[in-house]
C-alpha cells in the first residue's frame, strides 16, 4: 500500500458482536461474532473490494463504518478524523461525506415519492438551499448517472431495475460524498444491465474521485472494479492485497477454494481442477477455535486448531492470516 498518502477510510481492530437474548426475561445467552478484529484502509479515489460468502460479516462492516450500528470495539477514521465515538448529532455533518448504495433497487426506494424527490431528499435534509438551486443540482445528478431529466417526475415503479439502481446512485451522489459504500449494488441486476452499472460506477470514480468500499459476493465483479481486495471468512479478513496479486497468486487456502469455485465462462477451461470445499460455513455464534477455517481446510495443522493466525504482511502490501505461510 502507498504509505505516503493518508487513507480516506481507515478501520482498525473493528469488532461487532450482536448479543443473543433468550428466555421470557431476556438474558444474554451469547454473541454472534459478526465482525472480529478487522483492519483495513482505503486510499482516496480507490476501490476496496470486500468479498466473502453470506454471513461472513461484509455487510455488517459496511453498516458499522457508516455508524448505522455502533461498533463493539475498534476505531474508524474518515479522512484522518476519528468518528468512532461521535454521537448522532455530531455525525450529522459527516454523513454528507459518506453514502450507501443498496442491493435491491426495488425495496430501497419509497414507492410514493417521485424519482426527483428521492434524489433531492438528502439535499433538503443536509444542505437546505433555494428550491431552484436544489432542483438544478438534482437534474445535474440525474444527467450524470444517465437518467433522462424529464423522468424526474416519475415514480419508482415506472423505471426498470437498472434505472432504479441509477436513482439509488444519484441519491448517494447528490451531496458530493467522499466515500461511497456499495452493498452488493449490482447483484440483483440482469447480466446486460449489470455491465451498464459497473461502467457507471467506474466512470463516476474517474470523474469525481470517489472512494468506494465495494461489498460483493461476486468475485468476477470485484476483480473488475477494485484496486484492492480483501477476502473475509466468518467475520475475519483472511487475505488482503492489491487485486492482481490476490487473483494471480492467492495464498490462503480459502481464497484459493473460492477462486476455483467460480464457474468460468469458457468451455475449454472445463478440465481445470476445482477445489471443492466440504461442509458448510460454521455458525458465527460458536466459531471454531483457532483458525476459523480449519475444519474445512485441506492443509490443517495442529497449530491451526488452537491458535488463530494473525493477519501479517507477507510481502509488501499483501496481508495473510494463515499458519502455513509462517
Amino acid at each position, binding site marked *: 500500500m502507498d504509505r505516503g498518502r493518508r487513507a480516506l477510510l481507515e478501520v482498525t481492530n473493528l469488532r461487532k458482536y450482536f448479543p443473543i437474548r433468550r428466555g421470557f426475561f431476556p438474558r444474554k445467552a451469547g454473541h454472534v461474532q459478526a465482525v472480529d478484529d478487522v483492519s483495513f484502509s482505503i486510499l482516496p479515489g480507490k476501490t476496496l473490494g470486500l468479498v466473502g*460468502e*453470506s454471513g461472513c460479516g461484509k455487510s455488517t462492516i459496511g453498516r458499522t463504518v457508516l455508524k448505522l450500528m455502533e461498533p463493539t470495539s475498534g476505531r474508524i477514521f474518515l479522512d484522518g478524523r476519528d468518528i468512532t465515538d461521535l454521537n448522532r448529532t455530531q455525525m450529522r455533518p459527516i454523513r454528507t461525506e459518506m453514502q450507501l448504495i443498496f442491493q435491491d433497487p426495488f425495496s430501497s426506494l419509497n414507492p410514493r415519492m417521485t424519482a426527483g424527490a428521492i434524489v433531492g431528499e438528502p439535499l433538503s435534509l443536509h444542505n437546505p438551499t433555494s428550491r431552484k438551486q436544489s432542483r438544478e443540482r438534482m437534474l445535474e445528478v440525474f444527467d450524470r448517472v444517465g437518467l433522462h431529466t424529464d423522468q424526474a417526475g416519475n415514480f419508482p415503479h415506472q423505471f*426498470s431495475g*437498472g*434505472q432504479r439502481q441509477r436513482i439509488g446512485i444519484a441519491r448517494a451522489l447528490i451531496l458530493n460524498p467522499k466515500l461511497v459504500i456499495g452493498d452488493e449494488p449490482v447483484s440483483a441486476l*440482469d*447480466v*446486460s*444491465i*449489470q*455491465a*451498464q452499472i*459497473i*461502467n457507471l460506477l*467506474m*466512470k463516476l470514480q474517474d470523474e469525481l474521485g470517489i472512494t468506494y468500499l465495494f461489498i460483493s*459476493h*461476486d*468475485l*468476477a*465483479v470485484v*476483480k*473488475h*472494479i477494485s484496486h484492492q481486495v480483501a477476502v473475509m471468512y466468518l467475520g475475519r479478513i483472511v487475505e488482503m492485497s492489491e*487485486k*492482481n496479486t490476490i*487473483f494471480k497468486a492467492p495464498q490462503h487456502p480459502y481464497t484459493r*477454494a*473460492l*477462486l*476455483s*469455485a*467460480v*464457474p*468460468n*465462462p*469458457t*468451455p*475449454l*477451461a*472445463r478440465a481445470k481442477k*476445482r477445489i*471443492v*470445499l*466440504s461442509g*458448510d*460455513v460454521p455458525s458465527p455464534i460458536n466459531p471454531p477455535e483457532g483458525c476459523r477455517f480449519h475444519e474445512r481446510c485441506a492443509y490443517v495443522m495442529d497449530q491451526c486448531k488452537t491458535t488463530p493466525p494473525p493477519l501479517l504482511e507477507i510481502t509488501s502490501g499483501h496481508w495473510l492470516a494463515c499458519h502455513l505461510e509462517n
Partner: protein
Amino acid sequence: MQPLLKVQDLCVKFNARGGSFSAVDGLSYQLAAGETLGIVGESGCGKSISALAVLRLIPDPPGFYDGGAIHFEGVDLLHLSERQMQQIRGKQISMIFQEPMTSLNPVLTVGKQLSETLLLHENATKQEAHERAIEMLKLVQIPEPVQRLEEYPHQLSGGMRQRVMIAMALSCNPKVLLADEPTTALDVTIQAQILDLISTLQAKLGTAVVLITHDMGVIAEKTDRVIVMYAGRKVEEADVRFLFESPQHPYTEGLLASIPRIDTSESVDRSALNEIKGIVPSLADLGLGCAFAPRCRLSNDLCRTTKPPLEEKRPGHWAACWHSNQL
C-alpha cells in the same frame, strides 16, 4: 435415436389487462437421454415458464397453452389428463427450483417430504420409503442422514436444503430433470458442490438434465448444448463450444462480452465493460420485428419490421438473426 423429450413449437400465453402476451413463443428443442441442455437468458425471457410448461404447471388462469406439443417418449403431454400427468411428475420428469426454502414444505419433516414421492410412485411401504430416503440423503452427501430425516427445512442450511430438493427430485430415478436456477441462491463454494453433485448423479443414473440459468459460467462448465432465449423466443442454439467460440446472434455476443471475468489479464481490468444498451423489453408490447432490434448494433429496417426465422447458420448451429454473417 429417438429423443427422450421433444418440445415442438410451444407457445404459452398469459392473460393480462388489455389482452394476452406470449411468455414462450414457438420454442422447440429435443433432449436425448443422459444429455445436458442449458437454457440461458435474462429475467422475463421465458426460461422458467418453458420448464413449468413441460410439467403442465402453468397456472391456468391466467396462463394457457396456445399451440405446440411436448412429446415425452412419444406421448404428447399436452393431451394427458391431470391424473396421467401425476404419474409423470416426480416419477418420469422432475424439477428442482431456485429457492429451496419456499419450495419445501415448512411444516413437514424432511423425511416426510422425501418419502411422499416414494409412497406415491413406487408403491413402497413406509419402512421401504424410510430406508430409501436415508439412502437418497447419503447419495446427496448429507451427513447424519438418519437425524436429518427428523428435522424441518428451517433447521438446515441453504446448501443442505438444495441437496434435499435434489434428493427428492431424483428419488424415483426420473428420466428427465428440469433444474431451474438450482444454484442461484447459493454461495459459490456451495454452488460448486451442488453442480458437481448433479453431474455425478447424472452420470450414475443416466438422467437427462435441462439446466436453466442466467450464469454463462455455469453454462460453459456444465452443459453440452445451449439454447439462448430472448423475450420468449429461442434466438440461438448450438453446441456449447460453438456458442462461446463464435456466437451467431448479436444478443449472445453482447451477453458474452458484458460479463466481468475472473480469468482476464491485468490490462483488461477496470476498462469499461461492453454493455448492451437499453433494457429488456416488456413482453406486452413487442413490435413486429426482432425483439432485440432496439438494442442491437446491427439492426436495420428489415429487423424492425420482420421477425428473423431460426436458421441453421453452420452445421448444428442455429440462430434467428438477419445479420449473423456480420458477426
